């Protein structure tokens, strides 16, 4: 397994506004801050599977930090992106963890994150505001980053790989002014079991997607043995993928043994597929 394979076993990118919101996550996934002159503090787990950026508050920070983390961490399109944080709420219970399934701001266009994980948690709409709000009456969740995170993350990966989780921290009965550093840490801490369950779903998603998109097993071996043009490489990848489903690697190498050039390799693989009679009795 290559270093790249290990990193992509599962790949999670966290975007969190405050250090207090990030503390428990950093500890849970044993992340360490990356040295160097970074625009935002970035943490990374020892095996490189989890990366976390502390964006600071507001839409601009969230958007810039998401894009920055993408670049610094070389995230693949199999990476899952998670935004975790506290949020105000007009209807929910203090301390509850919620998944976001609709995001709006003052613009006309709404966004609809896809909430696939099977978990018994409330799903709510999120309103991202530019300035702190204390009128909770017409909103479910309120934050200051969600929509900007989602806008950027949805350019980096498929929407199913993006998750917004919010812990209710203030509302009509809980004054935002009463929030302090310890309370924010506690709010995340309180929900860590559910957060872990959700993250494990996204880890699996990322892992399976990576395996699916990975080059066929023999691809590197074959391109090191014969010279393939770019077009031929594409064809090789497609043919190998199909051949590997019915022919063991040793047999593939054996049938290609006498090939003198790349075009013969492609012809032989083509012929193998042409002659393949799928045995439906072994499904």
């Amino acid at each position: 397994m290559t270093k790249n394979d290990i990193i992509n076993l599962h790949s999670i990118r966290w975007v969190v506004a405050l250090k207090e919101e990030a503390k428990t996550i950093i500890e849970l996934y044993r992340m360490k801050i990356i040295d160097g002159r970074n625009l935002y503090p970035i943490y990374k787990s020892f095996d490189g599977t989890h990366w976390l950026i502390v964006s600071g508050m507001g839409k601009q920070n969230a958007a810039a930090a998401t894009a920055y983390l993408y670049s610094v961490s070389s995230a693949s399109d199999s990476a899952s992106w998670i935004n975790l944080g506290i949020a105000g709420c007009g209807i929910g219970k203090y301390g509850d963890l919620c998944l976001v399934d609709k995001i709006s701001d003052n613009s006309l266009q709404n966004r609809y994150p896809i909430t696939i994980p099977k978990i018994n948690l409330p799903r709510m709409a999120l309103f991202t505001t530019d300035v702190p709000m204390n009128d909770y009456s017409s909103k479910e969740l309120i934050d200051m980053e969600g929509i900007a995170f989602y806008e950027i993350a949805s350019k980096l990966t498929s929407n199913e790989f993006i998750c917004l989780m919010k812990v209710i921290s203030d509302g009509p009965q809980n004054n935002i002014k009463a929030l302090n550093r310890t309370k924010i840490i506690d709010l995340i801490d309180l929900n860590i079991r559910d957060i872990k369950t959700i993250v494990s779903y996204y880890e699996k998603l990322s892992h399976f997607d990576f395996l699916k998109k990975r080059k066929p097993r023999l691809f590197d071996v074959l391109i090191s043995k014969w010279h393939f043009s770019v077009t031929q490489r594409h064809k090789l990848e497609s043919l190998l993928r199909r051949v590997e489903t019915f022919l063991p690697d040793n047999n593939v190498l054996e049938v290609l043994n006498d090939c003198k050039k790349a075009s013969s390799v492609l012809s032989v693989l083509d012929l193998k597929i042409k002659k393949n009679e799928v045995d439906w009795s072994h499904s």
Partner: protein
Amino acid sequence: MIETIYIEKKIKNHPRADFILSKFKKARLIEIDRYSEIFNKRNQNFKIQKSRPDLILAHKESGLVLPTPDGFGIGNSKNFYFSHMYNCIYDCRYCFLQGMYSSANYVIFVNFEDFDNALEKVIRENEGSKMTFFSGYDCDSLALENVTGFAKHILGLFRKYPKIDLEFRTKSLQKEPFISVKNMDNIIIAYSLMPDIISSALDNKTPTIAKRIDNMTNLASKGWKIGLRFDPLIHGKDWKELYQELLETVFKSIPLSAIHSVSLGSLRFPKQMFKDILKLYPEEKLFSGPLFNNSGVVSYDQEIEAEMTSFCTKLINKHIDKSRIFKCSI
């Protein structure tokens, strides 16, 4: 189980939307402006969504009834299709829907009356022509009948036009509304069929072939016309024996007088669609078979296609006159 239902604001008070919502009392309801805000957007993954699809209730604005592509028909000169739903509760690996949409959510259009109007307009415009309408091009016509009630609704319209044919295409075991209303000669309930072991491998979440045959037999006994659809024909080891066995079983079970038509079609995908589906299911056995790009369409070699079609046609022809056997070539 549907966990989230998106509903267009325009139809949130529509009685049919209420009826459908009453079937999913625990679902979370999210209001949207247009179904296209959610459905088939860029950057969606059909395969992942298929693991837990949501429901979208919408109003269809245009393109309610469309002409079928050339080569799609069962004998009449004019052919049209319509879809009250996009996507399907089943997950068949050869289905073009998985390559056509990036989204696996189900879209149900609740403005059935607009479908009625569009259908009647087409009927008027083509008066004197022999016409067939196909339901279930972008979905399974009957699989969600207990939720939508569309078949029951549309039967009422076609009862007024006994010379105009309507085909429902399905793999479901849905018997309603057919067992509670009087049979109609212009309605064809068409079942997609393939040998049992191939169906077990490719038709995910569908009723077995034996159950489909039972259902057809039952509906035939109530006087309904049955369509047999061997589309796509799937190649593989012992395919001749497998199709022979299937055809013998079918013709032993269903009275020949109840069979309206039989159609056969080869497995085929537009080139880009095949690429997209292969990306979703790279390890799928179906795609390891002898499928090749023939002028922009990925299909079996012409030799294989011709042999399969000819073999099956000969067997079918022992029971059914050639005038009722059709080859679907799109």
